[in-house]
Protein backbone atom coordinates (compact mmCIF):
# COMPACT_ATOMS: atom_id res chain seq x y z
CA UNK A 1 0.00 0.00 0.00
CA UNK A 2 2.68 2.46 1.00
CA UNK A 3 4.73 1.88 -2.12
CA UNK A 4 1.87 2.64 -4.44
CA UNK A 5 0.87 5.56 -2.29
CA UNK A 6 4.22 7.28 -2.34
CA UNK A 7 4.25 7.08 -6.15
CA UNK A 8 0.94 8.87 -6.24
CA UNK A 9 2.11 11.61 -3.94
CA UNK A 10 5.38 12.11 -5.79
CA UNK A 11 3.94 12.60 -9.27
CA UNK A 12 1.89 15.80 -9.00
CA UNK A 13 4.13 18.68 -7.91
CA UNK A 14 1.67 19.98 -5.31
CA UNK A 15 3.08 22.15 -2.62
CA UNK A 16 2.06 20.27 0.47
CA UNK A 17 2.70 16.80 -0.79
CA UNK A 18 6.44 17.34 -0.82
CA UNK A 19 6.34 16.02 2.73
CA UNK A 20 6.12 12.31 2.24
CA UNK A 21 8.73 10.83 4.47
CA UNK A 22 7.72 12.56 7.70
CA UNK A 23 4.04 11.54 7.72
CA UNK A 24 5.04 8.09 6.61
CA UNK A 25 7.36 7.72 9.58
CA UNK A 26 4.68 9.06 11.87
CA UNK A 27 1.98 6.64 10.81
CA UNK A 28 4.31 3.68 10.29
CA UNK A 29 3.59 2.02 13.63
CA UNK A 30 -0.16 2.14 13.17
CA UNK A 31 0.07 1.03 9.54
CA UNK A 32 1.97 -2.06 10.61
CA UNK A 33 -0.50 -2.77 13.42
CA UNK A 34 -3.43 -2.16 11.11
CA UNK A 35 -2.10 -4.61 8.52
CA UNK A 36 -1.22 -7.23 11.11
CA UNK A 37 -4.30 -7.15 13.30
CA UNK A 38 -7.05 -5.97 10.98
CA UNK A 39 -6.25 -6.67 7.36
CA UNK A 40 -4.63 -10.04 7.89
CA UNK A 41 -7.38 -11.47 10.17
CA UNK A 42 -10.08 -10.08 7.92
CA UNK A 43 -8.54 -11.73 4.85
CA UNK A 44 -7.87 -15.13 6.40
CA UNK A 45 -11.22 -14.98 8.19
CA UNK A 46 -12.95 -14.53 4.87
CA UNK A 47 -10.93 -17.37 3.33
CA UNK A 48 -11.48 -19.73 6.27
CA UNK A 49 -15.20 -19.06 6.26
CA UNK A 50 -15.30 -21.07 3.03
CA UNK A 51 -13.33 -23.98 4.50
CA UNK A 52 -13.69 -26.62 7.19
CA UNK A 53 -10.55 -25.46 9.00
CA UNK A 54 -10.28 -26.48 12.66
CA UNK A 55 -7.26 -24.41 13.65
CA UNK A 56 -4.65 -27.10 13.00
CA UNK A 57 -3.72 -29.31 10.10
CA UNK A 58 -5.08 -29.32 6.58
CA UNK A 59 -8.37 -27.93 5.42
CA UNK A 60 -10.38 -28.03 2.25
CA UNK A 61 -12.73 -25.59 0.65
CA UNK A 62 -16.36 -26.37 1.22
CA UNK A 63 -17.87 -23.50 -0.72
CA UNK A 64 -20.87 -21.92 0.93
CA UNK A 65 -21.54 -24.89 3.22
CA UNK A 66 -20.70 -22.99 6.39
CA UNK A 67 -23.08 -20.20 5.51
CA UNK A 68 -25.80 -22.66 4.55
CA UNK A 69 -25.39 -24.55 7.81
CA UNK A 70 -25.41 -21.28 9.69
CA UNK A 71 -28.73 -20.24 8.22
CA UNK A 72 -30.15 -23.64 9.00
CA UNK A 73 -28.92 -23.57 12.60
CA UNK A 74 -31.68 -22.75 15.07
CA UNK A 75 -29.12 -22.02 17.81
CA UNK A 76 -27.62 -19.34 15.61
CA UNK A 77 -31.04 -17.80 15.01
CA UNK A 78 -31.78 -17.84 18.73
CA UNK A 79 -28.48 -16.13 19.46
CA UNK A 80 -29.06 -13.59 16.69
CA UNK A 81 -32.62 -12.87 17.84
CA UNK A 82 -31.55 -12.50 21.45
CA UNK A 83 -28.69 -10.19 20.47
CA UNK A 84 -30.99 -7.97 18.41
CA UNK A 85 -33.57 -7.92 21.22
CA UNK A 86 -30.88 -6.94 23.70
CA UNK A 87 -29.67 -4.13 21.41
CA UNK A 88 -33.22 -2.89 20.77
CA UNK A 89 -33.86 -2.69 24.51
CA UNK A 90 -30.57 -1.40 25.86
CA UNK A 91 -29.80 1.28 23.26
CA UNK A 92 -32.98 3.39 23.75
CA UNK A 93 -32.82 2.96 27.53
CA UNK A 94 -29.22 4.08 27.60
CA UNK A 95 -30.03 6.96 25.24
CA UNK A 96 -32.95 8.24 27.31
CA UNK A 97 -31.17 7.93 30.64
CA UNK A 98 -27.93 9.54 29.52
CA UNK A 99 -29.70 12.39 27.74
CA UNK A 100 -31.87 13.08 30.78
CA UNK A 101 -28.91 12.98 33.13
CA UNK A 102 -26.74 15.12 30.85
CA UNK A 103 -29.49 17.75 30.78
CA UNK A 104 -29.88 17.70 34.53
CA UNK A 105 -26.14 17.91 35.09
CA UNK A 106 -25.64 20.96 32.86
CA UNK A 107 -28.81 22.77 33.95
CA UNK A 108 -28.09 25.50 36.45
CA UNK A 109 -31.18 24.56 38.41
CA UNK A 110 -30.03 21.23 39.81
CA UNK A 111 -27.87 21.55 42.91
CA UNK A 112 -24.88 19.33 43.55
CA UNK A 113 -24.39 18.46 39.91
CA UNK A 114 -20.61 18.16 40.21
CA UNK A 115 -20.86 15.50 42.89
CA UNK A 116 -23.70 13.71 41.14
CA UNK A 117 -21.64 13.59 37.95
CA UNK A 118 -18.94 11.62 39.74
CA UNK A 119 -21.58 9.21 41.04
CA UNK A 120 -22.91 8.66 37.52
CA UNK A 121 -19.39 8.02 36.37
CA UNK A 122 -18.47 5.28 38.82
CA UNK A 123 -20.37 2.44 37.04
CA UNK A 124 -18.43 3.07 33.85
CA UNK A 125 -15.16 2.44 35.68
CA UNK A 126 -16.29 -1.02 36.73
CA UNK A 127 -15.45 -3.80 34.33
CA UNK A 128 -18.29 -5.64 32.57
CA UNK A 129 -17.37 -8.78 34.49
CA UNK A 130 -17.67 -7.05 37.85
CA UNK A 131 -20.84 -5.24 36.73
CA UNK A 132 -22.25 -8.70 36.05
CA UNK A 133 -21.20 -9.89 39.50
CA UNK A 134 -22.65 -6.78 41.12
CA UNK A 135 -26.07 -7.14 39.49
CA UNK A 136 -26.10 -10.84 40.14
CA UNK A 137 -25.54 -10.04 43.81
CA UNK A 138 -28.34 -7.47 43.71
CA UNK A 139 -30.84 -9.63 41.82
CA UNK A 140 -30.07 -13.05 43.28
CA UNK A 141 -33.32 -14.97 43.55
CA UNK A 142 -32.76 -16.31 47.05
CA UNK A 143 -30.26 -13.88 48.46
CA UNK A 144 -30.48 -10.64 46.48
CA UNK A 145 -31.36 -7.30 48.00
CA UNK A 146 -34.11 -6.61 45.46
CA UNK A 147 -36.08 -9.76 46.18
CA UNK A 148 -35.54 -9.20 49.90
CA UNK A 149 -37.06 -5.73 49.65
CA UNK A 150 -39.95 -7.06 47.56
CA UNK A 151 -40.66 -9.70 50.17
CA UNK A 152 -40.50 -7.19 52.99
CA UNK A 153 -43.06 -5.12 51.14
CA UNK A 154 -45.30 -8.16 50.96
CA UNK A 155 -44.66 -9.24 47.38
CA UNK A 156 -43.56 -12.57 46.04
CA UNK A 157 -39.93 -13.05 45.09
CA UNK A 158 -39.39 -12.60 41.38
CA UNK A 159 -37.57 -15.19 39.29
CA UNK A 160 -34.81 -12.87 38.08
CA UNK A 161 -32.51 -15.75 37.24
CA UNK A 162 -34.69 -18.64 36.16
CA UNK A 163 -37.02 -16.72 33.85
CA UNK A 164 -35.24 -16.07 30.56
CA UNK A 165 -36.98 -12.76 29.81
CA UNK A 166 -36.55 -11.33 33.28
CA UNK A 167 -32.95 -12.44 33.19
CA UNK A 168 -32.46 -10.52 29.95
CA UNK A 169 -34.21 -7.57 31.59
CA UNK A 170 -31.65 -7.53 34.38
CA UNK A 171 -28.83 -7.54 31.85
CA UNK A 172 -30.50 -4.67 29.97
CA UNK A 173 -30.67 -2.64 33.16
CA UNK A 174 -27.08 -3.48 34.01
CA UNK A 175 -25.92 -2.62 30.50
CA UNK A 176 -27.72 0.74 30.48
CA UNK A 177 -26.46 1.48 33.99
CA UNK A 178 -22.90 0.77 32.92
CA UNK A 179 -22.99 2.61 29.61
CA UNK A 180 -24.69 5.82 30.76
CA UNK A 181 -21.50 7.63 31.76
CA UNK A 182 -19.83 7.59 28.36
CA UNK A 183 -22.96 8.66 26.47
CA UNK A 184 -23.56 11.29 29.12
CA UNK A 185 -20.07 12.67 28.59
CA UNK A 186 -20.72 13.05 24.86
CA UNK A 187 -24.11 14.65 25.47
CA UNK A 188 -22.74 17.09 28.04
CA UNK A 189 -20.12 18.32 25.59
CA UNK A 190 -22.76 18.65 22.87
CA UNK A 191 -25.30 20.47 25.03
CA UNK A 192 -22.67 22.93 26.23
CA UNK A 193 -21.89 23.76 22.61
CA UNK A 194 -25.45 24.91 21.87
CA UNK A 195 -25.37 28.74 21.82
CA UNK A 196 -27.19 30.17 24.83
CA UNK A 197 -28.67 32.89 22.64
CA UNK A 198 -31.01 30.29 21.14
CA UNK A 199 -32.48 29.57 24.55
CA UNK A 200 -32.70 33.26 25.42
CA UNK A 201 -34.58 33.98 22.22
CA UNK A 202 -36.89 31.04 22.75
CA UNK A 203 -37.75 31.97 26.31
CA UNK A 204 -38.48 35.54 25.23
CA UNK A 205 -40.93 33.99 22.81
CA UNK A 206 -42.46 32.17 25.76
CA UNK A 207 -41.20 28.66 25.13
CA UNK A 208 -41.14 26.50 28.25
CA UNK A 209 -38.29 24.21 29.22
CA UNK A 210 -39.81 21.18 27.48
CA UNK A 211 -40.45 23.13 24.30
CA UNK A 212 -36.90 24.45 24.38
CA UNK A 213 -35.57 20.95 24.81
CA UNK A 214 -37.56 19.57 21.87
CA UNK A 215 -37.09 22.52 19.52
CA UNK A 216 -33.54 23.60 20.34
CA UNK A 217 -31.54 21.03 22.26
CA UNK A 218 -32.57 17.91 20.37
CA UNK A 219 -31.94 19.28 16.85
CA UNK A 220 -28.67 20.90 17.92
CA UNK A 221 -27.21 17.73 19.36
CA UNK A 222 -28.42 15.47 16.54
CA UNK A 223 -24.88 14.58 15.34
CA UNK A 224 -23.93 13.49 18.85
CA UNK A 225 -27.14 11.49 19.21
CA UNK A 226 -26.20 9.72 16.02
CA UNK A 227 -22.75 8.80 17.33
CA UNK A 228 -24.13 7.70 20.69
CA UNK A 229 -26.72 5.43 19.09
CA UNK A 230 -24.22 4.00 16.62
CA UNK A 231 -21.57 3.24 19.23
CA UNK A 232 -24.06 1.79 21.67
CA UNK A 233 -25.58 -0.43 18.99
CA UNK A 234 -22.18 -1.79 18.02
CA UNK A 235 -21.32 -2.36 21.65
CA UNK A 236 -24.63 -4.06 22.36
CA UNK A 237 -24.21 -6.36 19.37
CA UNK A 238 -20.87 -7.58 20.67
CA UNK A 239 -21.78 -7.84 24.35
CA UNK A 240 -20.51 -10.95 26.05
CA UNK A 241 -18.68 -10.56 29.41
CA UNK A 242 -21.69 -8.92 31.04
CA UNK A 243 -23.92 -11.87 30.21
CA UNK A 244 -21.23 -14.31 31.15
CA UNK A 245 -20.81 -12.93 34.66
CA UNK A 246 -24.48 -12.11 35.26
CA UNK A 247 -26.23 -15.28 34.19
CA UNK A 248 -23.75 -17.20 32.06
CA UNK A 249 -26.03 -16.78 29.05
CA UNK A 250 -28.75 -18.54 30.97
CA UNK A 251 -30.99 -19.85 32.25
CA UNK A 252 -29.76 -22.75 30.15
CA UNK A 253 -28.70 -21.36 26.81
CA UNK A 254 -31.64 -18.99 26.43
CA UNK A 255 -29.54 -15.83 26.59
CA UNK A 256 -26.55 -16.91 24.57
CA UNK A 257 -25.54 -14.00 22.39
CA UNK A 258 -23.75 -13.92 19.05
CA UNK A 259 -20.24 -13.37 20.37
CA UNK A 260 -20.74 -16.22 22.81
CA UNK A 261 -21.93 -18.38 19.93
CA UNK A 262 -18.84 -17.46 17.91
CA UNK A 263 -16.62 -18.10 20.89
CA UNK A 264 -18.13 -21.48 21.56
CA UNK A 265 -18.14 -22.77 18.00
CA UNK A 266 -14.66 -21.40 17.36
CA UNK A 267 -12.85 -22.27 20.54
CA UNK A 268 -14.85 -24.89 22.39
CA UNK A 269 -15.62 -27.12 19.43
CA UNK A 270 -12.80 -25.92 17.18
CA UNK A 271 -14.86 -25.13 14.10
CA UNK A 272 -12.76 -22.15 13.06
CA UNK A 273 -14.20 -22.05 9.55
CA UNK A 274 -17.76 -22.14 10.81
CA UNK A 275 -17.07 -19.50 13.47
CA UNK A 276 -15.47 -17.27 10.83
CA UNK A 277 -18.63 -17.50 8.78
CA UNK A 278 -20.65 -16.44 11.82
CA UNK A 279 -18.18 -13.58 12.37
CA UNK A 280 -18.76 -12.35 8.85
CA UNK A 281 -22.50 -12.43 9.27
CA UNK A 282 -22.11 -10.37 12.45
CA UNK A 283 -19.81 -7.96 10.65
CA UNK A 284 -22.30 -7.53 7.82
CA UNK A 285 -25.03 -6.83 10.36
CA UNK A 286 -22.86 -4.19 12.04
CA UNK A 287 -22.15 -2.55 8.70
CA UNK A 288 -25.83 -2.65 7.77
CA UNK A 289 -26.72 -1.03 11.09
CA UNK A 290 -24.13 1.69 10.51
CA UNK A 291 -25.30 2.37 6.95
CA UNK A 292 -28.97 2.48 7.92
CA UNK A 293 -28.22 4.90 10.73
CA UNK A 294 -26.11 7.02 8.39
CA UNK A 295 -28.98 7.22 5.90
CA UNK A 296 -31.53 8.06 8.57
CA UNK A 297 -29.17 10.70 9.92
CA UNK A 298 -28.78 12.29 6.47
CA UNK A 299 -32.54 12.33 5.97
CA UNK A 300 -33.08 14.01 9.30
CA UNK A 301 -30.46 16.63 8.57
CA UNK A 302 -31.84 17.44 5.14
CA UNK A 303 -35.37 17.80 6.39
Amino acid at each position, binding site marked *: MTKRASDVSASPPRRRSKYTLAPLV*LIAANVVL*FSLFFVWPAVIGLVYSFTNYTGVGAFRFVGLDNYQNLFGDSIFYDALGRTLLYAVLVVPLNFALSLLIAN*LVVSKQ*AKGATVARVVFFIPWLISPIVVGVLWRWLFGENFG*LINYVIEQLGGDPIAWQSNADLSLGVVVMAGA*WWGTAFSMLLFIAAIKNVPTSYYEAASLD*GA*GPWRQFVSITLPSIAPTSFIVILLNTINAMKEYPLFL*ALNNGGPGTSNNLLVQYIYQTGFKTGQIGYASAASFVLMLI*LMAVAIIQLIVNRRMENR
Partner: protein
Amino acid sequence: MTTTEAPRKIDADSARALPGKRSRRASRGSLRGAVSATTLLWILAALYGLPVLWFVLSSFKPAGDLFSLPLTVLPHNPTLSGYEAAWDSANFSQYFVNTALVCVVTTVLTVGASCCTGYALAKYDNKWLKFFFLCILATTMLPSEVMLAPEFLVVRDLGLYNSFGGIILPAVLTATGCFMFRQFFLTVPDELVEAARIDGARELSIFLRIMVPISRPIMLTLAILSFQWRWNDYIWPLLMLNDPDKFTVQIGIQSLVGAQNINWSVLLGGSVISMIPLIAVFLVFQRYVMSADINAGLKD
Protein backbone atom coordinates in the same frame (compact mmCIF):
# COMPACT_ATOMS: atom_id res chain seq x y z
CA MET B 1 -41.55 29.10 19.76
CA THR B 2 -44.81 30.93 19.26
CA THR B 3 -45.75 34.07 21.10
CA THR B 4 -49.30 32.89 21.65
CA GLU B 5 -48.44 31.05 24.84
CA ALA B 6 -49.37 32.68 28.10
CA PRO B 7 -46.72 34.80 29.85
CA ARG B 8 -46.82 32.57 32.94
CA LYS B 9 -44.95 30.02 30.88
CA ILE B 10 -42.02 32.37 30.66
CA ASP B 11 -38.77 30.79 31.62
CA ALA B 12 -36.98 31.79 34.77
CA ASP B 13 -33.83 33.06 33.09
CA SER B 14 -35.51 35.69 30.98
CA ALA B 15 -38.05 36.57 33.63
CA ARG B 16 -35.30 37.78 35.89
CA ALA B 17 -34.86 40.80 33.68
CA LEU B 18 -38.53 41.73 33.83
CA PRO B 19 -39.76 43.97 36.61
CA GLY B 20 -42.60 43.66 39.09
CA LYS B 21 -45.14 40.98 39.80
CA ARG B 22 -44.20 38.86 36.89
CA SER B 23 -40.65 38.39 38.06
CA ARG B 24 -41.76 37.36 41.53
CA ARG B 25 -44.10 34.78 40.10
CA ALA B 26 -41.41 33.54 37.80
CA SER B 27 -38.84 33.28 40.56
CA ARG B 28 -41.26 31.14 42.53
CA GLY B 29 -41.57 29.00 39.41
CA SER B 30 -37.81 28.79 39.09
CA LEU B 31 -37.56 27.70 42.71
CA ARG B 32 -40.03 24.94 41.99
CA GLY B 33 -38.02 24.08 38.90
CA ALA B 34 -34.80 24.00 40.89
CA VAL B 35 -36.32 21.79 43.56
CA SER B 36 -37.75 19.31 41.09
CA ALA B 37 -34.57 19.25 38.99
CA THR B 38 -32.43 18.70 42.07
CA THR B 39 -34.75 15.99 43.36
CA LEU B 40 -34.79 14.17 40.04
CA LEU B 41 -31.03 14.43 39.74
CA TRP B 42 -30.46 12.94 43.16
CA ILE B 43 -33.02 10.17 42.73
CA LEU B 44 -31.16 9.16 39.59
CA ALA B 45 -27.81 9.50 41.34
CA ALA B 46 -29.13 7.19 44.06
CA LEU B 47 -30.18 4.65 41.44
CA TYR B 48 -26.65 4.72 40.03
CA GLY B 49 -24.82 4.89 43.32
CA LEU B 50 -26.76 2.51 45.56
CA PRO B 51 -25.92 -0.74 43.72
CA VAL B 52 -22.23 0.05 44.10
CA LEU B 53 -22.68 1.08 47.72
CA TRP B 54 -24.56 -2.12 48.58
CA PHE B 55 -21.91 -4.17 46.83
CA VAL B 56 -19.04 -2.49 48.66
CA LEU B 57 -20.77 -2.64 52.04
CA SER B 58 -21.57 -6.32 51.55
CA SER B 59 -17.93 -7.04 50.89
CA PHE B 60 -17.11 -6.02 54.47
CA LYS B 61 -19.47 -8.59 55.92
CA PRO B 62 -18.05 -11.84 57.26
CA ALA B 63 -18.88 -14.82 55.06
CA GLY B 64 -21.40 -16.12 57.58
CA ASP B 65 -23.39 -12.89 57.68
CA LEU B 66 -23.78 -12.44 53.93
CA PHE B 67 -27.04 -14.34 53.67
CA SER B 68 -28.36 -14.06 57.23
CA LEU B 69 -31.78 -12.48 57.41
CA PRO B 70 -32.78 -9.78 57.94
CA LEU B 71 -30.33 -8.26 55.52
CA THR B 72 -28.67 -5.23 57.00
CA VAL B 73 -27.24 -2.31 55.12
CA LEU B 74 -24.28 -1.80 57.38
CA PRO B 75 -22.17 -4.81 58.30
CA HIS B 76 -22.45 -5.67 62.00
CA ASN B 77 -18.94 -6.97 62.34
CA PRO B 78 -16.99 -5.33 59.53
CA THR B 79 -14.14 -7.54 58.47
CA LEU B 80 -11.57 -7.69 55.73
CA SER B 81 -11.59 -11.49 55.67
CA GLY B 82 -13.14 -11.61 52.17
CA TYR B 83 -10.41 -9.36 50.87
CA GLU B 84 -7.68 -11.36 52.54
CA ALA B 85 -9.12 -14.62 51.25
CA ALA B 86 -9.37 -13.24 47.72
CA TRP B 87 -5.89 -11.78 47.81
CA ASP B 88 -4.32 -15.04 49.03
CA SER B 89 -6.41 -17.82 47.59
CA ALA B 90 -6.97 -16.76 44.02
CA ASN B 91 -3.42 -15.62 43.37
CA PHE B 92 -4.78 -12.13 43.02
CA SER B 93 -1.54 -10.34 43.71
CA GLN B 94 0.00 -11.99 40.65
CA TYR B 95 -3.04 -11.10 38.53
CA PHE B 96 -2.73 -7.51 39.68
CA VAL B 97 0.90 -7.24 38.67
CA ASN B 98 0.12 -8.81 35.28
CA THR B 99 -2.83 -6.54 34.59
CA ALA B 100 -0.97 -3.43 35.68
CA LEU B 101 1.95 -4.32 33.44
CA VAL B 102 -0.26 -4.93 30.42
CA CYS B 103 -2.26 -1.75 31.05
CA VAL B 104 0.74 0.53 31.46
CA VAL B 105 2.65 -0.79 28.45
CA THR B 106 -0.41 -0.76 26.18
CA THR B 107 -1.38 2.72 27.31
CA VAL B 108 2.08 4.16 26.66
CA LEU B 109 2.18 2.56 23.21
CA THR B 110 -1.37 3.64 22.39
CA VAL B 111 -0.73 7.25 23.37
CA GLY B 112 2.52 7.35 21.39
CA ALA B 113 1.15 5.73 18.24
CA SER B 114 -2.08 7.72 18.33
CA CYS B 115 -0.24 11.01 18.82
CA CYS B 116 2.01 10.37 15.81
CA THR B 117 -0.85 9.20 13.62
CA GLY B 118 -3.21 11.95 14.70
CA TYR B 119 -0.60 14.61 13.94
CA ALA B 120 0.15 13.16 10.51
CA LEU B 121 -3.56 12.98 9.68
CA ALA B 122 -4.18 16.55 10.79
CA LYS B 123 -1.16 18.40 9.43
CA TYR B 124 -0.22 16.63 6.21
CA ASP B 125 -2.36 16.49 3.15
CA ASN B 126 -1.97 13.40 1.06
CA LYS B 127 -4.34 11.03 -0.70
CA TRP B 128 -2.93 7.98 1.03
CA LEU B 129 -3.22 9.66 4.42
CA LYS B 130 -6.92 10.21 3.77
CA PHE B 131 -7.21 6.58 2.76
CA PHE B 132 -5.49 5.47 5.95
CA PHE B 133 -7.84 7.64 7.97
CA LEU B 134 -10.77 5.78 6.42
CA CYS B 135 -9.05 2.49 7.26
CA ILE B 136 -8.77 3.52 10.89
CA LEU B 137 -12.43 4.51 11.00
CA ALA B 138 -13.30 1.13 9.54
CA THR B 139 -11.69 -0.62 12.50
CA THR B 140 -14.58 0.51 14.69
CA MET B 141 -16.81 -1.65 12.50
CA LEU B 142 -14.50 -4.57 13.01
CA PRO B 143 -13.97 -4.98 16.73
CA SER B 144 -11.73 -7.83 17.79
CA GLU B 145 -14.72 -9.58 19.37
CA VAL B 146 -16.09 -10.03 15.89
CA MET B 147 -12.88 -11.33 14.35
CA LEU B 148 -12.19 -13.57 17.33
CA ALA B 149 -11.16 -16.73 15.53
CA PRO B 150 -9.03 -15.35 12.67
CA GLU B 151 -7.34 -12.81 14.90
CA PHE B 152 -6.46 -15.58 17.31
CA LEU B 153 -4.84 -17.51 14.47
CA VAL B 154 -2.84 -14.49 13.36
CA VAL B 155 -1.51 -13.80 16.84
CA ARG B 156 -0.73 -17.48 17.27
CA ASP B 157 1.15 -17.55 13.96
CA LEU B 158 3.14 -14.54 15.05
CA GLY B 159 4.32 -16.64 17.99
CA LEU B 160 2.63 -14.42 20.55
CA TYR B 161 0.28 -17.01 22.04
CA ASN B 162 0.42 -17.14 25.84
CA SER B 163 2.53 -14.00 26.05
CA PHE B 164 1.71 -10.48 27.14
CA GLY B 165 2.75 -9.30 23.67
CA GLY B 166 -0.28 -11.13 22.31
CA ILE B 167 -2.57 -8.98 24.44
CA ILE B 168 -0.68 -5.73 24.10
CA LEU B 169 0.06 -5.41 20.39
CA PRO B 170 -3.45 -5.97 18.96
CA ALA B 171 -4.81 -3.37 21.39
CA VAL B 172 -2.42 -0.53 20.54
CA LEU B 173 -4.22 0.82 17.47
CA THR B 174 -7.47 2.49 18.48
CA ALA B 175 -9.64 4.65 16.31
CA THR B 176 -10.63 6.76 19.29
CA GLY B 177 -7.04 7.68 20.06
CA CYS B 178 -6.12 8.65 16.50
CA PHE B 179 -9.35 10.58 16.22
CA MET B 180 -8.85 12.54 19.43
CA PHE B 181 -5.34 13.60 18.45
CA ARG B 182 -6.40 14.45 14.92
CA GLN B 183 -9.18 16.68 16.19
CA PHE B 184 -6.78 18.35 18.59
CA PHE B 185 -4.03 19.00 16.04
CA LEU B 186 -6.59 20.39 13.59
CA THR B 187 -7.16 23.20 16.09
CA VAL B 188 -3.45 24.00 16.22
CA PRO B 189 -2.79 26.78 13.66
CA ASP B 190 -0.79 25.76 10.61
CA GLU B 191 1.24 28.97 10.98
CA LEU B 192 2.99 27.40 13.94
CA VAL B 193 4.30 24.62 11.71
CA GLU B 194 5.12 27.02 8.87
CA ALA B 195 7.06 29.33 11.17
CA ALA B 196 9.11 26.46 12.52
CA ARG B 197 9.82 25.30 8.96
CA ILE B 198 11.04 28.75 8.00
CA ASP B 199 13.33 28.67 11.00
CA GLY B 200 14.81 25.56 9.48
CA ALA B 201 13.36 22.99 11.85
CA ARG B 202 13.05 19.52 10.43
CA GLU B 203 9.64 17.89 10.19
CA LEU B 204 10.10 15.33 12.90
CA SER B 205 11.68 17.76 15.30
CA ILE B 206 8.74 20.14 14.82
CA PHE B 207 6.57 17.28 15.90
CA LEU B 208 8.71 16.23 18.84
CA ARG B 209 9.72 19.65 20.14
CA ILE B 210 6.55 21.68 19.54
CA MET B 211 3.56 19.45 18.96
CA VAL B 212 4.11 16.70 21.49
CA PRO B 213 4.44 19.10 24.44
CA ILE B 214 1.28 21.07 23.63
CA SER B 215 -0.81 17.93 23.27
CA ARG B 216 -0.29 16.89 26.88
CA PRO B 217 -3.95 17.24 27.99
CA ILE B 218 -5.10 14.96 25.17
CA MET B 219 -2.40 12.48 26.10
CA LEU B 220 -3.66 12.33 29.64
CA THR B 221 -7.28 11.91 28.57
CA LEU B 222 -6.45 9.13 26.16
CA ALA B 223 -4.19 7.51 28.74
CA ILE B 224 -7.06 7.31 31.21
CA LEU B 225 -9.44 5.93 28.58
CA SER B 226 -6.91 3.40 27.40
CA PHE B 227 -6.11 2.33 30.93
CA GLN B 228 -9.82 1.78 31.56
CA TRP B 229 -10.31 -0.26 28.38
CA ARG B 230 -7.35 -2.51 29.05
CA TRP B 231 -8.01 -2.97 32.74
CA ASN B 232 -11.51 -4.18 31.94
CA ASP B 233 -10.64 -6.36 28.95
CA TYR B 234 -11.80 -9.91 29.30
CA ILE B 235 -12.28 -12.00 26.16
CA TRP B 236 -8.97 -11.36 24.48
CA PRO B 237 -6.73 -12.07 27.51
CA LEU B 238 -8.82 -15.16 28.19
CA LEU B 239 -8.16 -16.49 24.69
CA MET B 240 -4.51 -15.53 24.62
CA LEU B 241 -3.35 -16.69 28.00
CA ASN B 242 -2.98 -20.29 28.93
CA ASP B 243 -0.63 -20.06 31.86
CA PRO B 244 -2.43 -19.24 35.17
CA ASP B 245 0.61 -17.22 36.25
CA LYS B 246 -0.12 -14.78 33.43
CA PHE B 247 -3.85 -14.36 34.02
CA THR B 248 -5.32 -10.90 34.40
CA VAL B 249 -7.64 -9.72 37.16
CA GLN B 250 -10.81 -10.05 35.07
CA ILE B 251 -10.06 -13.68 34.26
CA GLY B 252 -9.46 -14.32 37.94
CA ILE B 253 -12.83 -12.87 38.89
CA GLN B 254 -14.70 -14.69 36.16
CA SER B 255 -13.13 -17.97 37.29
CA LEU B 256 -14.65 -17.31 40.73
CA VAL B 257 -18.07 -16.63 39.17
CA GLY B 258 -17.84 -19.68 36.96
CA ALA B 259 -17.24 -22.01 39.89
CA GLN B 260 -19.89 -24.58 40.71
CA ASN B 261 -20.61 -23.05 44.10
CA ILE B 262 -19.85 -19.37 44.09
CA ASN B 263 -17.87 -18.28 47.14
CA TRP B 264 -19.53 -14.89 47.46
CA SER B 265 -17.30 -13.67 50.24
CA VAL B 266 -14.15 -14.13 48.14
CA LEU B 267 -15.91 -12.93 44.99
CA LEU B 268 -17.10 -9.68 46.58
CA GLY B 269 -13.69 -8.99 48.05
CA GLY B 270 -11.89 -9.71 44.79
CA SER B 271 -14.32 -7.63 42.77
CA VAL B 272 -14.00 -4.61 45.01
CA ILE B 273 -10.20 -4.87 44.95
CA SER B 274 -10.31 -4.95 41.16
CA MET B 275 -12.36 -1.74 41.07
CA ILE B 276 -10.00 0.27 43.27
CA PRO B 277 -7.19 1.17 40.80
CA LEU B 278 -9.51 2.61 38.15
CA ILE B 279 -11.59 4.56 40.61
CA ALA B 280 -8.41 5.96 42.18
CA VAL B 281 -7.02 6.97 38.78
CA PHE B 282 -10.34 8.53 37.87
CA LEU B 283 -10.72 10.54 41.06
CA VAL B 284 -7.23 11.95 40.70
CA PHE B 285 -7.54 12.84 37.01
CA GLN B 286 -11.28 13.31 36.73
CA ARG B 287 -11.13 16.80 35.27
CA TYR B 288 -9.26 15.45 32.25
CA VAL B 289 -12.06 13.01 31.58
CA MET B 290 -14.95 15.26 32.51
CA SER B 291 -13.83 18.27 30.52
CA ALA B 292 -12.63 16.19 27.61
CA ASP B 293 -14.37 17.09 24.42
CA ILE B 294 -14.30 13.60 23.00
CA ASN B 295 -17.33 14.59 21.04
CA ALA B 296 -15.85 13.32 17.86
CA GLY B 297 -14.81 10.32 19.85
CA LEU B 298 -15.37 6.80 18.88
CA LYS B 299 -15.37 4.22 21.58
CA ASP B 300 -13.02 1.30 21.45
